[in-house]
């Protein structure tokens, strides 16, 4: 079965239909997606700014103790709401280049955040390479957000 067929099946699913046919569900999920985006931005930025020397002077490993709860919560809400949004219009998404850009950059952002950025922050890493990782992490998430918004335009 091709990927396009799968998209058609998801589109025909009860969940997909319910979200698509409701007036309020899609906007409500979309708004929650945006609120979580803000939370993700804040929690990653508060650590990043400190690493880059433009923010708090508290050791970043200490900031991580509070910030990682919010970035984790935000990522979970973003993934759940994102899947729900996707389930309601998978055939449209299949044909959108921006969607695939978003999925690829999302994979990169998740890998970089959870396998590189977070472990380094937890260890209190600093220096040029840590700043590089930080810039890469922010760039990856910005690409995800930009591509996500672009799905609506293309």
């Amino acid at each position, binding site marked *: 079965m091709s990927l396009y067929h799968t998209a058609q099946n998801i589109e025909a699913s009860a969940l997909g239909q319910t979200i698509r046919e409701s007036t309020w569900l899609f906007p409500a999920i979309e708004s929650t997606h945006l609120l979580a985006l803000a939370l993700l931005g804040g929690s990653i930025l508060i650590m990043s700014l400190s690493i880059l020397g433009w923010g708090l002077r508290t050791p970043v490993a200490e900031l991580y103790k509070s910030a990682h709860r919010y970035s984790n919560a935000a990522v979970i809400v973003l993934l759940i709401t994102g899947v729900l949004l996707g389930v309601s219009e998978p055939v449209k998404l299949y044909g959108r280049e921006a969607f695939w850009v978003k999925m690829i950059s999302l994979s990169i952002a998740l890998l970089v955040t959870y396998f590189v950025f977070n472990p380094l922050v937890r260890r209190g890493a600093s220096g040029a390479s840590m700043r590089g990782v930080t810039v890469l992490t922010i760039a990856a998430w910005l690409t995800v957000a930009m591509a996500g*918004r672009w799905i609506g335009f293309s």
Partner: protein
Amino acid sequence: MLGELVTKLADTPWSIALHESLYMYAITESTHVLSIMLFVGTIAMVDLRLLGISFTKVPVSQMLSKILPWTIAGFVLLVITGSMLFLAIPIRTYHSIWFRLKCTMILIAAINIAVFTFKVERDKAAWDLGPVPRKSKICAVISLSAWACVIVFGRLIAYNWFDCDSITSPTMAELTGCPLDPG
């Protein structure tokens, strides 16, 4: 009077150019959304500190002096891109109930910031690292709720449920400034 102003605004070449341009409008709106991460994201972190539930090892004074400049930078970006988005679609946005609610919430958030700046944080040296007072928590809750509403109402502007052509109740006509269609 404001109604006339937005009608004039809609006829300006700037408005038409923004409205007609596919890329400029899309880039402006994307920048607006991305700036939310900077603005609401950072203010939310400050609010969580002011609630006393997170970043408790960071002095309140440092949270305000080091993070709020970024919040302000985000706000500047949002106001510039937001004004451009309004300029692109002035009449519809002016009548949008969501836009009006969004502006109301921004006003509430602004008053809250004024109260925090001129009253609440005055004696912050006394609770820089200690337990935060109730007044600080109240400001934080108002801030978090108001900005969350601003995001949600802002997103809903895109939906046409209450556009002028679908308004039938006198109350909604009053609230949106739309002419009530007798037909």
